[in-house]
């Protein structure tokens, strides 16, 4: 028992302390968090806008009079549907490679490329989450807003989105956690994220167990921490209604 423990300790020192290899892990962690954070911001921004286009088109397509407005809305709606189909119909790794080698060829800033790709990817899923949230709000809320004199955008901003957001928070949290883990494929474009950091150590020390288990543990702890944080936020939002 004591022998096994000593061996583990030795392996730990060899993998992380020697040559300051722990820096691969901490720097990688920072990159993972950065990419996740920016991708989430971009994803929510895209999600809100595209969800508004989709749901406003569905709500008003029968009532709209022919003209510029209707043509614009139909065009935007078709564009939104194309976006959703393409993004949800292709693997994120392929999108990442296309983003790096085809679209953003001129930049070497891999954090930027990864954030964009994951943001655009996640935006498609967040769109559907937020659209569900918008549709779950009683139409009377929308009518009340419009009857006071708010236009469509103002009604969305002040009345519908705040309520929808509260309803979709659990799903958004799931998406965030999925995103955090999905960014592990960033290594494909040479980005030194948490997973790649652990893998580099494995390559240097030729021991797989210690670095990979450490990486897995860090992901797990992050997910547990964020789940706890979101649960707290959720309870707080709910209590404001009581």
């Amino acid at each position, binding site marked *: 028992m004591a022998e096994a423990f000593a061996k583990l300790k030795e392996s730990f020192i060899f993998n992380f302390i020697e040559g300051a290899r722990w820096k691969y892990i901490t720097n990688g962690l920072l990159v993972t968090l950065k990419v996740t954070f920016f991708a989430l911001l971009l994803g929510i921004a895209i999600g809100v806008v595209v969800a508004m286009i989709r749901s406003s088109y569905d709500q008003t397509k029968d009532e709209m009079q022919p003209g510029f407005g209707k043509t614009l809305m139909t065009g935007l709606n078709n564009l939104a549907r194309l976006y959703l189909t393409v993004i949800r119909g292709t693997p994120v790794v392929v999108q990442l490679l296309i983003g790096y080698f085809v679209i953003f060829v001129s930049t070497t800033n891999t954090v930027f490329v990864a954030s964009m790709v994951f943001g655009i990817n996640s935006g498609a899923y967040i769109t559907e989450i937020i659209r569900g949230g918008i549709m779950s709000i009683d139409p009377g809320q929308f009518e*009340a807003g*419009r*009857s*006071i004199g*708010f236009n469509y955008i*103002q009604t969305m901003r*002040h009345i519908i989105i705040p*309520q929808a957001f509260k309803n979709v928070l659990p799903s958004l949290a799931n998406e965030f956690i999925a995103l955090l883990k999905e960014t592990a494929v960033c290594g494909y474009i040479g980005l030194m994220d948490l997973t790649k950091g652990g893998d580099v150590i494995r390559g240097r020390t030729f021991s797989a167990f210690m670095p990979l288990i450490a990486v897995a543990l860090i992901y797990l702890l992050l997910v547990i921490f964020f789940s706890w944080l979101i649960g707290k936020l959720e309870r707080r939002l709910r209590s404001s*209604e009581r």
Partner: protein
Amino acid sequence: MSAEIIISVKDLEKHFNAGAVHALNGVSVDIEKSEVLVVIGPSGSGKSTFLRCLNLLERPTGGSVVFEGTDITAPRVNINLYRRRMGMVFQHFNLFPHMTVLKNLTLGPTELLKKSQAEADKKAMQLLERVGLSDRADAYPSQLSGGQKQRIAIVRALCMEPDVMLFDEPTSALDPEMVGEVLDVMKELAKVGMTMVVVTHEMGFAREVADRVLFMDEGVIVEQGTPEEIFDHPQSERLQSFLSKVL
């Protein structure tokens, strides 16, 4: 009649499902300033659709609505500007559940009328005082009774200082013992000269408060007149049979 006409409705039509359902079949009526117009009729008669066409929550498929001299059914009219001057009260209150009562009341005035928060608060508190709910300003809608919610909804519409108030079956979703408190507020409003269009099943209210009663059935106005004419001397058979069921 020399009274000022505030809303003039002409040949209003509303068809749903590409003409399959005719909710309104040519309704024409002039509503005068300070008039209390009560619309009665069986369910499915088109009375709610008529009301909702007045502020274009329902877009009419034919005819026109002229509000204070402007045809608001014309294309390129910014309906949002006119809705500010037409308060609306719904059957299901439709208060904003994520805001306090005070915020519900001041959202429109601060965002649309560009009042300062303090100014809007002051006006809202005055009106809350009048409906006896000034102590609930910081409550959330879920903490209120149905009657309280509807009184707040009325105040929310009043905070925009509208020229006309539209009521869509304001007491139909209330427990019987709460109907009175809401009707009292509406009577109060009628007394101070607010122009009101009220769709309701409260015949007592119609008889007591209305200046004119419209009886609608199958998308048309079947009969109209003073409460005495409508309730005591109904002419048409349809009105007689309707009254025999509800009175």
